[in-house]
């Protein structure tokens, strides 16, 4: 974009895209122990460590570079996550930002949707499998439906919470079979933070 994109519901501008990423980094750093805790229950106890390592690298990259436009900035975010996170969430969040970066010209809701589709393609996954998609897809739906940020956050939150009773079909949690039910998916939680960060950074432009 490079300047404020206009679209029903939400608007997004240069400073605010960077603010979104920085706010996400802040929320991840704060939530890291909780994310790892969630991952202990159904995975391998590293989701918080993974994302906080990645987002710290992203912040370092933002601090030390300047970008021609939001697309370049988000591309850097995606590549940094791919290069520093590893595990499942590295390629997934990395792909998310790379796709958002490429589609920014179509407006934020469409770009967000492109990111979410990228996650689904990379992960060969869909809503209802107890993953980050359970948060991201309802958020994308709400954005495309022109909802305002509080409603988008609500949709993401409801999606996140929907993972609790689900039996996991993707990622490590799927190894648990029925025992995965009753736990919140760690990626659904970190994705909720991504949406919340967007709401506070980008929603300021509403």
């Amino acid at each position, binding site marked *: 974009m490079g300047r404020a994109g206009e679209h029903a519901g939400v608007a997004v501008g240069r400073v605010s895209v960077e603010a979104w990423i920085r706010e996400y980094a802040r929320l991840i750093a704060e939530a890291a122990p909780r994310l*790892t805790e969630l991952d*202990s229950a*159904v*995975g*391998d*106890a*590293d989701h918080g*460590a*993974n994302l906080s*390592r990645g987002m710290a690298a992203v912040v370092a990259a933002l601090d030390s570079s300047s970008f021609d436009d939001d697309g370049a900035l988000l591309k850097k975010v995606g590549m940094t996550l*791919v*290069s*520093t*996170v*590893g*595990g*499942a*969430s*590295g*390629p*997934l969040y990395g792909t998310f930002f790379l796709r958002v970066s490429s589609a920014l010209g179509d407006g934020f809701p469409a770009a967000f949707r492109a990111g979410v589709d990228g996650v689904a393609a*990379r*992960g060969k996954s869909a809503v209802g499998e107890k993953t980050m998609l359970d948060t991201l897809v309802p958020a994308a739906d709400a954005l495309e439906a022109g909802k305002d940020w509080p409603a988008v956050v609500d949709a993401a939150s409801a999606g996140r919470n929907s993972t609790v009773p689900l039996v996991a*079909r*993707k*990622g*490590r949690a*799927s*190894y*648990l*079979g029925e*025992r995965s039910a009753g736990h919140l998916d760690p990626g659904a939680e970190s994705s909720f933070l991504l949406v919340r960060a967007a709401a506070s950074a980008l929603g300021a432009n509403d």
Partner: protein
Amino acid sequence: MKKLINAPADVVVESLAGLAAAHPSLAVDLEQRVVHRADGPVAGKVGLISGGGSGHEPLHGGFVGLGMLDAAAAGEVFTSPVPDQILAATKYADGGAGVLHIVKNYTGDVMNFEMAAELADGVQIATVVTNDDVAVEDSLYTAGRRGVGVTVLVEKIAGAAAEAGRSLAEVAAVAQRVNDRGRSMGLALTSGTVPAAGKPTFDLPEDQIELGVGIHGEPGRQRVPLPSAREAAAMLVEPVLAEISPEQGVLAFVNGLGATPLIEQYLVYGEVAALLERHGVPIVRSLVGPYITSLDMAGVSVTLLAVDEEMLQLWDAPVNTPGLRWGV
């Protein structure tokens, strides 16, 4: 958490530095955290690489050397390495005859290796995904069986095939066959502790075990009362045996998961051997020890490989790595 480390964030790179210092036959790219043969790449030889989260030592860095891997990428503890690392390992291994990627079947590993392969232009790449853990149902509705103990056997046998000068397609084929004919199952008595997490991944009551546990401390499918070694051997061997066809006998591999002492591993091996004898399945090769571990988890896994003549020859071929060595 009690560990002999400096800072949790430095565990992997500092341990690799120690590995390099201890083994002059290995070189370590500390920047990319890739272990590779000091004499590599070997021109004209198919390169073999693997990689995965750290915390499973000696897997994979300890299996780099003549007759096994050419390079290994070390991720953070229990976290798949990133594509850059896998790409770097691929380049260290590339002697012009193509590179085999040996990938344990975990979502993260598969995706990161996929991204690396997409980026590796100019190098011919084949991929074998190991998925031998019978504790996990192999269904379209899950991430599929995990790659565990058979990975060690794939690395050894495919490594010997590459050393013998076979083509990438041939090396990949034998690797695939080893994976297809090998199955594993593990159990944990205690959880390991990820340095960055600082406390055990799961809690197990003093009188229970986690049956079908994964090597990342992923809880298993079932908690059962602490069995005797004899019962434990049966819990591991029976489901494995049900999924292989050992016409020519098996390679039996009892693997310590980290904190279980060798005296118990051999005791379990004795039970496994007795059980296989009752089943009329001859053991033609064996391996006992901590080869694919899960930090300081106490427990064992059993891998049975339904061997054939070719696999045995490749198994017996010389290997010279920190973790496995014979014939040289």
